[in-house]
């Protein structure tokens, strides 16, 4: 008897959290939070997501520009945001030297998890096709 093994979105994100000196992660779809692993309250996480989307919208307005990533350095922490389709990933990390590795790992994560994101957004369809919910 065979069983399909489906990695959960949360566990994939937890693995990404161990890719470097990462303080927290946030995964969003459009303007809603899918998974919140930031050391902040929910309302702050939501505002951070909206802020990032507003920034992308600002640069895209009036042209064909498509921002793929934003990176900010603050006192003691860096914020790296990646955008893939309607999915946003925010990573808080502490070592500037890790930014390119984290960007690469996060980009792979976003590529690999599009189906899992789809499963979270449409759990009933996925249950019928593949098994139990994934989060």
């Amino acid at each position: 008897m065979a069983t399909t093994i489906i990695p959960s979105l949360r566990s994939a994100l937890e693995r990404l959290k161990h890719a470097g000196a990462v303080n927290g992660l946030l995964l969003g779809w459009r303007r809603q939070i899918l998974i919140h692993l930031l050391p902040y309250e929910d309302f702050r996480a939501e505002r951070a997501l909206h802020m990032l989307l507003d920034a992308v919208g600002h640069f895209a307005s009036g042209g064909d520009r498509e921002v793929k990533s934003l990176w900010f350095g603050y006192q003691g922490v860096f914020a790296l945001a990646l955008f893939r389709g309607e999915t946003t990933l925010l990573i808080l990390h502490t070592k500037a030297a890790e930014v390119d590795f984290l960007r690469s790992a996060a980009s792979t994560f976003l590529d690999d998890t599009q189906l899992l994101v789809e499963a979270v957004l449409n759990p009933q369809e996925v249950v019928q096709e593949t098994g139990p919910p994934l989060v």
Partner: protein
Amino acid sequence: METPPMPLQLFNLREGSVSGTANQTLVDAFAADFQGLKHFGTKLGDVLGVGAPWTGALQEEDFTLSFVHFNAGTGALDAGAGAMIGEKRSLLDMLNRISEREF
């Protein structure tokens, strides 16, 4: 014939103005992106309770733009430098290149 990608362009931030050896169109383009990036970086910093950013970068498929404020000053008049290039460049490399311009 394909247009070659824009080479690395460097800019200075001093007393609220942007200057550089690039032509005025590129200086204006950098200034507009810098202002937008700084604005949203500051708003994100406010949400996270970490203040204004001392560095920031924006990346598209074939474009990278970065800025750095020197000496921990992050105000509108504080000194800094910036750069942009027509390719997807390492963010750390951009940060290092700009930081070398500290004066």
